[in-house]
């Protein structure tokens, strides 16, 4: 699925209930993160749920695995990964993630005060783009 397709899918959903159900579904479809990665080095701090992010690099492209113990957060992570996976560091830096979340209608989840890990996760991805 592309980001545009995702935005389109969300556009069909009128109520927050449907959006949240779809988010939960997206999270359920994510490939499971091996238990060995659910450890402190991969944990994203500053979240009210546990969030893990594992980067890797293939040629000049970054890949990410992620997971959370909270279902809605996991769905949000799947969107973040869809946005950032398989991109070069400079492409990662160029992404207007706020705009994408606004189009999906989930912008409030990127607010720093939410502390659901999403904002911290995006910061971490951008940090990896700098150092990897």
């Amino acid at each position: 699925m592309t980001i545009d397709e995702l935005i389109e899918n969300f556009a069909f959903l009128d109520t927050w209930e449907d959006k949240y159900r779809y988010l939960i579904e997206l999270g359920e479809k994510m490939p499971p993160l091996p238990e060995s990665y659910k450890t402190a080095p991969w944990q994203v701090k500053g979240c009210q749920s546990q969030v893990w992010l594992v980067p890797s690099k293939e040629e000049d492209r970054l890949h990410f695995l992620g997971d959370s113990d909270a279902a809605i957060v996991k769905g949000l992570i799947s969107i973040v990964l869809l946005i950032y996976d398989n991109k070069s560091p400079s492409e990662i830096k160029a992404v207007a993630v706020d705009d994408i979340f606004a189009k999906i209608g989930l912008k409030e989840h990127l607010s720093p005060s939410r502390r659901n890990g999403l904002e911290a996760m995006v910061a971490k991805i951008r940090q990896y783009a700098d150092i990897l």
Partner: protein
Amino acid sequence: MYDVNKIREDFPIFALSINGKPNTFLDSAASAQKPKIVIDKMNDMYLHEYANVHRGSYLLSEEITLAFEQARETVQKFVNASSSSEIVFTRSATESINLVAASWGRKFIKSGDEVLISEAEHHANLVPWQVLRDEIGFKLNICRVNDDGSFDMEDFRKKLSSKTKLVAITGMSNVLGTIFPLKQIISLAHAGGAKILVDACQLAVHQNIDVKDLDCDFLAFSGHKTYGPTGIGILYGKYELLDSMPPYQCGGDMVDIVTYEHTTFDVPPARFEAGTPAIVEAIGLAEALKYLMQIGQDNITNHENELTAYTLEQFSQIKGLHQVGTAQGKGGVFSFVVDDIHPQDLAFILDKEGVAVRVGHHCAAPLVKRMGHSSVARASLGLYNTKEDIDILVKAINKAKTFF
């Protein structure tokens, strides 16, 4: 007659809807909403009566100095202290506890002594003692709570020794809602020769505080939880104790004679209020406390007890909901988990229904872990909450269950 609907009208924020739903605010244990009289009073001070305190020899400064010192008297009355000189204005309850640790603790606790706290302390009454322990080398003992969240008196007696210099303990747990048997704890502590600091952050909101009756040595609470502004906290200390303590921070307004070579310090409470204080916040807090005293703390306690019983009854009927902290006589703080729902997911859905609860470890991470969780949801009551609020919460929890 306690008319909760009339009380709600005193709080402008409840006129606002949240996500198109009634504002069901159940997070007063984190911070309480403010009655309009507090907001108006603070605005009025800034608009018409503002100047610095304790400095100017002009009308505005004299007037606001008077209002500031009257605020101290209001706090004195609120906690029933012997003198307003026993009331120190701080930035927060956290600062109040840090003040005692840094000033009294550093002077009077020696290597080989012991400090006793409970498992139910939030970080503000745990971390300052850990840091001081690492500096001085005393032993920090932690007495247990039982699995239902009640205070384990036997363990407390066991851990209290002739070496215990200080017992620092909460009056009411911000996670479990347990009301600790303070009078018994304090008399045991004193019998063993220890001083006692009460963290009354939650207790001061829900029950009458009488420091003379309790006979505690120090007591801390915050302004923003007692329906007052942020940025102001209270430290009560027995005067002879405060007088024996060195300054905490140094600067203006806390000194006696200053030369380039040497400085002597003012008497309490000025000694502990270096620099320009949170003047308008102190006056705002006094307004909030007057509001509470006018309604009558006992009336508030009765209302909240009734609502607590109702909440416990409603929660017991939600299948898959497990309460964390079920001690007898607990106050209006309800931590819980629901089978198959992460507290964070639950909070997202409750928010969409206009219901504010807090999730996480509630700045008491070791306690939440000790109760067997990494994260819990918490609903907490204020004097403005109603049975309808609880009904909306219960309905929203049941709705959340359909998602997972």
